[in-house]
């Protein structure tokens, strides 16, 4: 079976500061991978390299079997960035307009949103239960609503791989829980492969099927059963953190 994502010997540095060292892993169709690690472990760098936002210097990244350098079929990849980092509250874009931006990956010059696209936008809004917010200004919504808008934007092009960068940041516990349930549903019912960066080890244990723990290199990659039974991981994380990840799984 073709890997959705295959990373081999990936290294990256910001000047003299090493961010990733010899990272290798494969992600299969339908996987739900929680990507965790301490601050500065290279999680966001890894995501930016996969998305082509940074240019890799060593190693290979293959998306759907194709080298990331020449990959252009971006409609197959949905991305939900950190909400707080991107949303300008003064930007007057409506929810419908923001979600429509997710369709641009399918378009060639001149990119235009037509009536057929508007139906896709309606469907994405409906799938996220936010149809009633269609004409509202995205910057004026609550954190949980904004996160659903960004998920709708990522989902509107019907991607096969969904990448989320700390989607629970700045959400209240209930909104966060609802959001993670929604992502889990997309993974289980539609078979969408998910990679989610999070600092919340408990959430990873509860929702993800696999853990990718980075600390510049890969500390652990695999299923939770292996993780929870690994004495090496108990020594690395300590029994408390390991239990936190494992007890909800």
């Amino acid at each position, binding site marked *: 079976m073709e890997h959705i994502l295959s990373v081999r010997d990936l290294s990256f540095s910001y000047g003299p500061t090493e961010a990733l060292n010899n990272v290798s892993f494969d992600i299969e169709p339908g996987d739900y991978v929680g990507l965790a690690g301490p601050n500065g472990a290279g999680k966001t760098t890894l995501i930016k390299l996969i*998305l*082509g*936002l940074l240019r890799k210097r060593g190693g290979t990244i293959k998306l759907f079997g194709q080298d990331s350098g020449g990959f*252009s079929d*971006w409609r197959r*990849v949905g*991305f939900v*960035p950190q909400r707080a980092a*991107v949303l*300008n509250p*003064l*930007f*007057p*874009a*409506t929810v419908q*307009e*923001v979600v429509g*931006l*997710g369709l*641009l*990956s399918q*378009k060639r*010059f*001149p*990119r*235009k*949103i037509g009536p057929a696209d508007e139906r896709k936008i309606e469907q994405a809004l409906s799938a996220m239960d936010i149809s009633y917010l269609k*004409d509202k*200004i995205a910057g004026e919504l609550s954190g949980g609503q904004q996160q659903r808008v960004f998920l709708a*934007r990522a989902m509107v092009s019907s991607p096969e791989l969904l990448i989320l960068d700390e989607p629970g940041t700045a959400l209240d516990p209930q909104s966060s829980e609802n959001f993670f349930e929604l992502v889990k549903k997309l993974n289980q019912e539609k078979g969408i492969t998910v990679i989610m960066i999070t600092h919340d080890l408990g959430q990873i244990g509860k929702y993800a099927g696999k853990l990718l723990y980075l600390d510049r290199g890969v500390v652990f990659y695999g299923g939770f059963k292996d993780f929870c039974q690994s004495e090496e991981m108990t020594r690395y994380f300590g029994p408390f953190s390991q239990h936190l990840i494992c007890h909800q799984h």
Partner: protein
Amino acid sequence: MSIIEFLQYSFIQKAFLAGAFISVLCSTLGIFLVLRKMSLIGDGLSHVSFGAIALGLFLGVYPIYVAVPVVVAGSIAILKITEKAKVYGDAAIGIVSAAGIAGGVILASLARGFNVDLFSYLFGNILSISDIEVILSIALSAAVFLTVYFFYYDFFSAAFDEEYAKTTGIKTSAVNALLSILTAITVVLSIRIVGIMLVSALLILPAASALQLAKGFKAAIAIGAVVALLSLLLGIVISLLLNLPTGATIVIVNVMFFLISLFYKKMV
């Protein structure tokens, strides 16, 4: 003399015609620039145009012909300095803008003959706009409008979230360069209306007013265009009635619209 009588003069008709195109052009680009926190690029490029116009007068070439390529080059220089020299955008604008002003002052000092002409470009005079300038304004405005129309979603996406735009395959560096070049052309066209000193007002004020009121991105562009047009029409009429400088009056009407939009937003 009544407004109807004024409107029968061809110089007034030309002022309305060229002014309408350019003011709507400014407001449209202004929305993208203000939202991308690039408002001051208009100010910086207007300073470059001072140097360019001085160069045109010095060489005895029609200044607008010199200003278009020089100011476009200035806009690319701002982008390149920001990207390659690891200088923040505002500092890059400051560097290029200072070079433009300094170059203009030196040329004016060397020539000693065209200071009066240069002064007319500093404050503009829409009522003395020539036939060729009207044609140039309409033609270049149409070219810029068409570019904005074809790249609307690229500009919109890059303005909303540049990083996300890249993940959808949009070449944001090219989009930024295109926006800067369009701004450069627009700045040069606007000089005849309000002058070098007030060009950035035409880019910033209608957009800032629209952003107070708009409930959607397309709505913001539409409101900005209406504010820009009304400010131009009222500015010309008031300046004629009260015998005031036209460019400055257009800007003051724009400021009044901005204050009204602020007040309206507070009330609603």
